[in-house]
Structure formats: structure tokens, C-alpha cells
């Protein structure tokens, strides 16, 4: 056959694709890939801001992880936190988005209210949350006592602190994910709901499972990947709210890496920690994306 004619139209589109991808790719290279490569290199050295010189130490930094019990603690904390945060940060906004989207009347006011936390500044909000979560006289415990429950030591109890942080994080992310879901929901053709209601899929659950959920899949995939990544990237809230306390009960992985790198100036070890973490996180996120993409087959 005519080999040329097969190759060339493809090529023009390919060229276009490359052209469109070039700026972003270049920046990704500059902002992510090269720095990560640098981090990768550093992880084989004993580099630190404290000394000018450095020498290669091979896999020492990686070996060190296995002897570092805080590594495991941090990993465990991160997983526990993620297990609390991810469902909350995914399901609540989804429910909210669906509930809000259906209403004509209060839709806009509700949207604004739930989005407010996203606009807030973490440092200021941390002060507020400290006050609210105060185990002695905080508003939340006052409420609990008022409702006949006992007080909870939100930030002081090592068993509770991750829940508290997750609560604060979910609070901060509800509006964010809700807006994403809302954007996704508006993209679902209305006539499918109509077809569904004719077909008898009138129950909210049916509407959800037969139409909304499958068609929201791209958004849902995005939100879930992003939520997953956010969960594992937890840093700020810990840094300002608990500083890993009490007694490392909220020391999550990235915070550990931060401490090692920027408080203890074990830069190279921090790099190694980060890389191990990123590799695992990337694999999970990538797998999730691929699976989600595959399941989503409508065009």
C-alpha cells in the first residue's frame, strides 16, 4: 500500500500535538523534572545547607530509612490520615454538589457558603481552629457537652489528633471539590436524565448510579486522584496546627521529610525520603488514573 499516505496526516497532527504540548512540557521539565533529578542526585550524597562540600554516600540515605523508626511512624500516620481524609473529602462534596445543584432557590448562597473555607488563609484559620478545637473551652467541645457528650481532647490526644487534622482539612477542601463536582455535573447532558426518568430511573439513587456517576466519571477520577495526592501531601496543616504533636502522633510523611531537611538540615536524607514517597504515590495515582480512564469509555 501507499505507506506515505498513512504516515503523513498522522504526522501533521502529531506535530500539532507536540506544538501544543511544548510550552507546558518545557515548564514541567524546568519546574518538576530537573529539580526532581537534582533531588535524586542529592539523595546519594550527604549534602546539607550547613556545609559547602558534599560527597557521595551511595545508598546510605536509603538504608537509613529502614533503621529510622520515625519513618514507619510517619508512614503509618499518613495512611491513617488518608484513610480518614479521602472518603470525607470525596463523598461529602459529592453529596453536597448533587444536593445543591438540584435546587434552584438557595443554590447560589449555599455554593458561596460552602466555598468560603477554600478562600481562607491557613495560618489565620489555624488560630481559629485551635480556639474551636480547644479541649477545655473550645466551641466544639462546648457544643458536645451541650449535646450531652463528653469532651474530646482534639489536639492533645495522640489517637484523636489525626482525626482533628483530617476534619480541618476536609473543612478546607469541601468547597474545592464541591465546585469541581458542580462543574462536572453541569457537563452532563440533561436529556439523559430525561431518558432515565422515562425509563423509570426516577429514584435519586437510580439517577445517581445510572446517569450521574458514570457520566461524572472524568471529574470523579480527577477529584479522587487529586484528593489522594492531597491527602498524602499533607504538610501545611500539620506544620501550623500541631507541628507533628502530640509526641509525633501527627507527624506525617512530608512533615517528617521537612523536619529532616529544613530543621535538622539532613537535606540528602530528606531527599531520599521524599523520593521513596513520591515513587509510591505516583504509582498509586497512575494506576488509579489508568483504571479510571479504562472504565470510562464513552466518547
Amino acid at each position, binding site marked *: 500500500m501507499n505507506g506515505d499516505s498513512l504516515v503523513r496526516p498522522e504526522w501533521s497532527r502529531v506535530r500539532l500535538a507536540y506544538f501544543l504540548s511544548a510550552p507546558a512540557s518545557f515548564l514541567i521539565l524546568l519546574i518538576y523534572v530537573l*529539580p526532581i533529578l537534582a533531588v535524586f542526585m542529592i539523595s546519594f550524597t550527604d549534602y546539607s545547607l550547613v556545609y559547602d562540600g558534599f560527597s557521595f554516600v551511595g545508598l546510605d540515605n536509603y538504608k537509613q530509612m529502614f533503621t529510622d523508626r520515625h519513618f514507619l511512624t510517619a508512614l503509618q500516620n499518613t495512611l491513617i490520615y488518608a484513610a480518614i481524609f479521602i472518603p470525607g473529602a470525596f463523598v461529602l462534596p459529592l453529596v453536597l454538589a448533587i444536593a445543591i445543584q438540584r435546587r434552584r432557590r438557595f443554590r447560589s448562597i449555599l455554593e458561596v457558603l460552602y466555598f468560603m473555607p477554600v478562600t481562607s*488563609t491557613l*495560618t489565620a484559620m489555624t488560630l481559629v481552629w485551635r480556639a474551636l478545637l480547644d479541649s477545655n473551652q473550645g466551641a466544639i467541645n462546648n457544643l458536645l457537652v451541650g449535646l450531652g457528650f463528653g469532651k474530646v481532647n482534639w489536639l492533645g490526644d495522640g489517637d484523636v489528633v489525626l482525626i482533628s487534622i483530617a476534619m480541618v482539612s476536609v473543612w478546607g477542601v469541601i468547597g474545592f471539590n464541591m465546585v469541581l463536582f458542580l462543574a462536572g455535573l453541569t457537563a452532563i447532558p440533561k436529556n439523559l436524565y430525561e431518558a432515565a426518568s422515562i425509563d423509570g430511573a426516577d429514584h435519586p439513587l437510580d439517577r445517581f448510579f445510572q446517569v450521574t456517576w458514570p457520566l461524572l466519571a472524568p471529574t470523579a*477520577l480527577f477529584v479522587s486522584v487529586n484528593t489522594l495526592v492531597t491527602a498524602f501531601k499533607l504538610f501545611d496543616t500539620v506544620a501550623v496546627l500541631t507541628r507533628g504533636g502530640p509526641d509525633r502522633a501527627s507527624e506525617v510523611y512530608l512533615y517528617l521529610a521537612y523536619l529532616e531537611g529544613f530543621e535538622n538540615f539532613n537535606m540528602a536524607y530528606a531527599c531520599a525520603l521524599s523520593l521513596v514517597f513520591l515513587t509510591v504515590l505516583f504509582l498509586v495515582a497512575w494506576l488509579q488514573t489508568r483504571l479510571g480512564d479504562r472504565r470510562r469509555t464513552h466518547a
Partner: protein
Amino acid sequence: MSDIALSQPQPGFLGFLVSLKPRSLADAIGTCLLFLGAWLVLFPFVWMLSASLKPANEVYDSEFSFWPETFMGGVNYYGVLFEQPYLTFLANSFIVCIGILIVQLITAVPVAYALAKLKFKGKSILFGFVVASLTIPINVTSIPIYLGLVEFGLLDTYFSLMFPFFVSVFAIFLFRQFFRDYPDSIIDAARVDGFSEIEIILRLILPAAVPALAAFSVFSVVAHWNDLYWPLIVVQSQNKMTAALSMLQYQSDFDNDYGRTFASATVVTLPMVIIFLFARRLFIRSITMTGVKG
């Protein structure tokens, strides 16, 4: 509110009341729950706003009351707005956020389109890089990037404040997901009509992706508006400080000016709320894809 309205019935008021009648009990309960939730979500803000009006000895009173006994709002807000170059900080924040947003959109939209709608070799690799980059927190890359900026003498510039955020993999991923749903047959029609691929993006895809674009824009602006981590690293002189940084001014280890801190937080948050209010309409501006059958 409601009794004021009752005492002066307006022409449309009866109609309003009737329209308020819940369509069903479940609906009414749902609405109540939503508002209850909203109140919970909002409470920290109410608390913050209230605190910004109070003297220090009232802020942490265990019995919360919105209105302070001693009103300090005037002092607090005056201090935040006029005793420091707040306008400069505000302007810096705007420059940085808008600059970041523009570059992010310019870079993310084309690549997202390519990833969503074009076939090319290396596509899944590129997408792999995007997902990978999504997982990389700035904490990890901050030192290499910082060293690079120092190398080029760019520290303490707007550029250095913006640079690490010029490409948003979040945006690329998000837009890709949204673009994928755009009907191919409309794109085909456009190709026949003589659209260049760029114009397909500009004229067709973008208008349809407005909800996602608006959502992202708000996220981006809010995120960088409130960002402390990176500005703390690259800002050296006070005239490059951002509004969020200025909020720290009233806090130190054993000595916090709570009133001003919260007044400052309120003042810093306010522009974001306003931006959101304006952008919000775009979120729901969806285009029904009824141009196609099937």
C-alpha cells in the same frame, strides 16, 4: 428579617411566600440540613470576624458572642489597613496571582487539549509526567528551584514568586478530563469549516469548559493568594511582600496581636470571597451539548 418583611408586604411578597412553600417535606429537610451544614462550615469565619472586632481578652472567652463588649474593630482594621503599606501588599498579591494564572492557563489549555483529543506518540508518557508532577509537593523541589533562581539573580522578584507555578499540572489534568467529554463530531465540523486547531480550542473548547476554567482560576488565585511557603523563601524585601505574608506580622512566639491578626486575615480573605462571588456564575454556566444527536 422576616418580620420586617411581614410588616411591609410588597406586591411580590405573597408570591414569594407561596414559592417558598416546600415542594415536599424531604426537600425542606434537605434544605435545612444544607443550611445547618453551611452554618458549621461557616462558623470559623464568623468566629474570625468576631475576633477581629475584639480586644485580646475577649477573643478566647469560652462563651462565644459575636459582638464584643469592647469594640476594637476600628483600631484593628485601621492598623491593618493604614499602619502598614497594605495596598502595596495587596498589589503584589494581585500581580503574582494574576501573572501565575495567565501563564498557567496559556500553558495548560493547549497541552490539555492535545492530551484529550489528539493522538500522538509519547502522549501517555507526557500524561504520566503530568500525574507524576501532580504528586510532587513544592517542599521537595523548593531547594533546587531556589538555587536556580539564585543562580540567575532572580531572587526577590515577581518572577521568582511566580515561576514555580507557571505550569499547573493540576490544571492540565483537570482540563484534560473536561475536554475529553467535548463531542468529537463538533470538533470535526469545525475542522471542515476551516477552524485551525488553535481556534478550535479558543472558540469551541474553552467556552464549553468555562465551568472548569472558572473553577480552576479561582483555585489558582486563592491558592497563591494564601500561599506562605514559597513567598517566605523568595521574598527578601518588604516591598515584595504579599498580603498573606503581612498577616504574620502580628504573630510571634509569645506575643500575638489577635485582633489585628484576625482583622488582617479578614482583609486578606475578603478579595478572594469577592472574586469567588464574581466567578461563581461561570461555574454553572454550562452549555447544553444539544448540538449533536445520540
